[in-house]
């Protein structure tokens, strides 16, 4: 195989004009999206198939990508979602006993335009200093278009603030994930798919939960129709400020006193349902090494993150006291050790909690998997009271 001539040229153009050149990787053509970087050293397949990355061009800081190929078990959803993929050194060939295919082939099949050979560290540092921004990747003949034209294409891309994307990634039809053989079904949960990752219902099912995964557009009646013991809102892409329908649905669940657990987008929506603000971080948290302090235990968990938006603690509110909301006081249960971002909420008078990070990991450490047990405990207590 020739390593130097196989690939056509490609160019990456940022909204602020900075340009990086490289070689085409994956599909050839043009793509635009929000440039974000992910610092995980493992788990590129999970990242690519995480619906939260919809409309984002993901820069991998790990220099070698594709080493372990792709396999059907590490898919977090039915397809690759990223809008574009930026790597430094793609693997020449995959090597892993579970591998069933080559990553670049998978990207090509999915039509994902990527670029390789980029100084990804320089690009990452740029995004860190200037914040996430729009980007275009142009490969093959498109790479040769005039620079001004490329820049204009990037500027015409829709920004992430104000984007409502959950419906675009959500399942069109409801489906059920049942507990595996040998595990007694004890609970039913209505899980709203705002971009859910496959591991999430799997981990719930392992705890005896029948998980009804519902489209983002589901109505309250449809939620009630599964006779849920609890309601779950998943992770997902986009600006939480746009998710009016989902927030309304969540308020109905809180009104009904149903136990609620939210992850990522589901945390932001709980915040908004309670009346807390959300905001966009400069460059977000994307990686699998992020320390989060559980303020109730003082313990630190190393966790998987993928969020550009976050819940803002009310200005002037006491930081270690609960703040009042229409649903009673809410506490900030978790904070990010690196930058104090609110990473979790817990309500004191209604059975509801959520985290901004990913206890389902995939990719990432399993330190926070016990949160699914906490959800089960919450449903147990609720059932006992009822």
């Amino acid at each position, binding site marked *: 195989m020739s390593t130097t001539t196989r690939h056509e040229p490609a160019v990456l153009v940022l909204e602020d004009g900075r340009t990086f050149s490289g070689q085409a990787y994956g599909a050839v053509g043009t793509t635009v999206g929000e440039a974000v970087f992910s610092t995980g050293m493992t788990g590129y397949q999970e990242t690519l198939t995480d619906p939260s990355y919809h409309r984002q061009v993901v820069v991998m800081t790990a220099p070698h990508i594709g080493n372990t190929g792709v396999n059907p078990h590490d898919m977090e959803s039915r397809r690759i979602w990223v809008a574009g993929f930026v790597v430094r050194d793609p693997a020449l060939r995959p090597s*892993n006993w579970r591998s069933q295919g080559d990553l670049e082939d998978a990207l090509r099949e999915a039509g994902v335009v990527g670029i390789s050979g980029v100084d990804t560290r320089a690009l990452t540092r740029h995004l860190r200093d200037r914040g996430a921004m729009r980007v275009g990747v142009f490969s093959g003949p498109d790479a040769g278009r005039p620079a001004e034209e490329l820049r204009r294409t990037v500027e015409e891309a829709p920004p992430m603030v104000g984007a409502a994307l959950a419906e675009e990634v959500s399942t069109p039809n409801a489906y059920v994930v049942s507990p595996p053989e040998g595990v007694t079904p004890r609970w039913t949960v209505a899980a709203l798919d705002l971009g859910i990752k496959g591991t999430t219902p799997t981990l719930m099912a392992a705890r005896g939960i029948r998980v009804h995964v519902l489209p983002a557009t589901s109505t309250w009646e449809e939620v009630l129709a599964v006779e849920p013991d609890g309601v779950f809102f998943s992770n997902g892409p986009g600006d939480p400020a746009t998710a009016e329908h989902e927030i309304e649905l969540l308020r109905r669940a809180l009104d009904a006193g149903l136990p609620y657990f939210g992850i990522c987008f589901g945390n932001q929506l709980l915040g908004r349902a309670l009346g807390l603000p959300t905001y966009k971080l400069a*460059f977000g948290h994307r990686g699998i090494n992020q320390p989060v302090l559980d303020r109730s235990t003082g313990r630190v968990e190393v966790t998987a993150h993928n969020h550009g938006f976050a819940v803002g603690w009310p200005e002037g509110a006491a930081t270690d006291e609960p703040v009042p909301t229409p649903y009673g006081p809410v506490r900030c249960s978790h904070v990010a050790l690196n930058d104090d971002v609110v990473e979790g909420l817990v309500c004191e008078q209604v059975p509801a909690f959520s985290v901004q990070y990913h206890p389902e990991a995939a990719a990432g450490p399993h330190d926070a998997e016990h949160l699914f047990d906490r959800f089960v405990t919450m449903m147990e207590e609720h059932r006992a009271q009822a």
Partner: protein
Amino acid sequence: MPRREDIRSVLVIGSGPIVIGQAAEFDYSGTQACRVLREEGVRVVLVNSNPATIMTDPGVADATYVEPITPEIVEAIIAKERPDAVLATLGGQTALNTAIALHEAGVLERYGCPLIGANVEAIQLGEDRQAFKGVVERCGADVARSAICHTMEEAIAAAEELGYPVVVRPSFTMGGLGSGFAHDEDELRMIAGAGLQDSPTTEVLLEESIMGWKEYELEVMRDRADNVVVVCSIENLDPMGVHTGDSITVAPAMTLTDREYQQLRDIGIAVIREVGVDTGGCNIQFAVDPDDGRVIVIEMNPRVSRSSALASKATGYPIAKIAAKMALGYTLDEVPNDITTSGGLRPPEAPRTASGEQRHDADRWYSAAFEPTLDYVVVKVPRFAFEKFPAADPTLTTTMKSVGEAMALGRSFTEALQKALRSVERAGSSFHWREDESPSPEMARALLDQARTPTDGRIVLVQQALRGGCSVEEVHDATGIDPWFLDQIQLINELAAQVHDEARLTGDGRLSPELLRLTKRHGFSDAQLAELTGMTEDVVRGVRHALGVRPVYKTVDTCAGEFEALTPYHYSSYDEETEVAPRERPAVIILGSGPNRIGQGIEFDYSCVHASITLREHGFDTVMVNCNPETVSTDYDTSSRLYFEPLTLEDVLEVVHAERQAGPLAGVVVQLGGQTPLGLAAALKAEGVPVVGTSPEAIHLAEDRAAFGRILAETGLAAPRHGTAYSAQEALAVAHEIGYPVLVRPSYVLGGRGMEIVYDDETLAGYVDRATLAGPDHPVLVDRFLDTAVEIDVDALYDGHGLYVGGIMEHIEEAGIHSGDSACVLPPFTLGRTELEQVREATRLLAEAIGVRGLINVQFALAQDVLYVLEANPRASRTVPFVAKATGVALAQAAARVMMGTTIAELRREGALPAHADGGVMPADAPFSVKEAILPFRRFRTQTGQAVDSILGPEMRSTGEVMGIDASFGAAFAKSQLRAGTSLPTGGTVFVSVANRDKRSMIFPVKRLVDLGFSVMATEGTADVLRRNGIEAQVVRKHSQPEGSSSSGPSVVERITAGEVDMVINTPSGRDARADGYAIRAATTSLDRPIITTVQQLAVAVLGIEAMRGGPLQVASLQEHAASLDLFGRAAAPAVDARG
């Protein structure tokens, strides 16, 4: 949790001398720990017998005991210092074993000083293989099927059950000592037999073979709140079967999916919890079946290790430093990540508001409770020393055999691998494309066959086999190396072929800028490109620079760029953006010494670190360049800037260029890191780089035989008669003129490489004829060998006007034993004032004539009252740290200042050197410091499983050294011989067999031993001489004598092996050791009993034994010694006058 208030003083146990399997990494980790403890206001008491370490510098601990690390001595220190706690997890296996012995003897309890870091139960769980198996199973993970055996019969039965091959692992040994693969019962008897002996608990574990599986390692940290982080994952390129210390290793793991990696992480965390490591670091090794992913836990070390040092350097996460903080009770989230934290205190954690900015410069505090993420690849390559032990079996096994390692970072595996291979600095260690044509298919197949057996340099065989057309699959089948790695090597070969073709195509070797850049991105050196294009390295570099193809420098930041790094810890890469910051202070670039090897070890790192420390304090920014991950010099805290780079001319020139762009450059220091940087001096100067201190021309004067001859003539100093030969005939002519015996050696060597003492024509001709030795560029030096001389070593400073004698050392062995292997004593114990004056004057004359500005080391031989100059080296020597500790003067710091232009007189005035005295004339009541070499013979076996011969000679073989210091010479010597598992006996049986020439000198010391109550065994001839002198000796049969001839019963070798002999005195006659002598020494070495191979050693050993019988050895700290020695005259009136 805040730190424990009940700990106000801590005893830190170090790791002792550098040995294979336990090297400089423990100086790095121990130094970090001591500094942390002192910052926390804890009084640090340190014990470490290794003088070449930074940690034993008097400034690092409050009380520094350079004393033997044995339970008795450490108990004496505890009794004297009464520490609140003992920290033993930073001193390797030596410290852990000592701590366990102290615990078992009830010492820790008696003095109320518990272990901190890991508790005894955890240490035992981690080290006791049977118990550990239970731990792993309780964590729901798998272990290899195994059986624990205490006798050979049990072992044989167990192996039958498990099926051959089986792995044999002795319990409680370090660096895999004594372990190996047994393919049949014969091999099992050999390996398990030795293993049962090596294990302090007479215990070996037999395991099912998982040879060829993938091997991984995780570095895990835990605090007392049970927070756990994984600092680093490491993947071995060499699959299971090669000790991880001897494997090429890669960080992070390259061929694991997240699912698989998280499985290892989950197991690792479960194990550290189950074992109960309270706080600190530990490493866990895994084997993974490449076919189905079955995971087996191999072992866990509940302490910092070689791997954790590597992981610290690879990630920027200082494991030892943080482990020390956790031992004091801090939790991970209370400790800052130095790389990204700008300072200040941990901010009170408060949830951010929507308008809150993501923190930037103002209050940047990041905690150590996270897992580093890498945006680069790290490759470590081991460095071996088989050339020093020609008889040793070079096959790599589960017993570690490497003596050092080099690490390199790159933005891709290929870049990091090629940089690491050239960092190893051994001829043939890098990939090559020498012949015009690839190896033929037959040759490739032969190479592949060779590569089936893991050896030093297998990676090059693999590269050549691929080049010759073997497929990745074939090579994978033969070696077990993962196809992903092989594919990367294949890529390197493909690029080389492209370069080769393109250079031929253009006719004049030119390359397109694109191809040139691409090859550099994959780690090709200018030298490799020169080879491929037929140009010279200089021309390649010239073209490259003209095209603007230069490396950029990235930063090791623990977080892949997510946060700004404040610590300039750089590595080169052919990428787009450089991160070298501008600076204002003038920079001094210090070139380190590269991977540890025999002859160039930690002693040189010591001098580099000292130079950096002092120059930073005196107005310079110091820039360290080195590639050895074990050392203090490559701690990002040591210098203003650290470049983790190979020490080749190309890599150094690029650093110089980058730093010149960044600000003013005061110069480059090449004289402190040993031969590696010294060898670059002339080329650097030719490139216009300012070399500070002694000039490259002056260095050449000392190294070039003819030039040095002129200097000797000028100064009127004597040298042994000598000549230079370019062929065997010339060598014989020289030898006939000057007379036998002669000492022969290649020019320009360090550590006596290839040096031999020759007694006759035949041996001499054979020596020179060994093809590689002599040639037009590589003459052989032939010196008259002074057999009965006393050897003297001097370390001194010269500034162009004044001389400061750091110390004068007298060797205990006679001339002919390499100075690095010879025990020596300071102050000299048999030299008179006149002789010392002579030595001082000769040193001054040499320093002046050579033009030294900084350190000079001179070796003299005193024979029949004539002082001969053996050699002079205008650079830091191996003995600088020993001299510094023996005299209480920071010699290397003074040297660095002199190199930058400060005079000795100024240093004396400011108190950096004693105002009047120096180390050349020590007060009469000065304590004696004895330096003793530590030899690795026990590590090696011949291909038939025998121990390798342990005779000393002019070629250096020791890996490290210990220092014994005491008011009496005998006690100082006894201490230098005392370490875990071995010491001079105070009674029992000695076996004596000496060469005829030594029979006269042996009588008095042996008589003394008998008076002290020893019984004597001797071979017939020696026994006769002893008997005639009134010494009764039991005659024992030589090994080669048939039973029943003149004596009967077991042979001497059998008696030694049976443990009947407590000390062996055996002086060999000539270089060709007779078979008997070899068998005797081999048996003694195997049992680790003291063996004396020279009569001088015997005489001082008797003094040592007398000292030990005089009552328990006393302990004193270096600080106490320095106060009583008082060279600086701080306590009393002016000391002895000495010229300055």
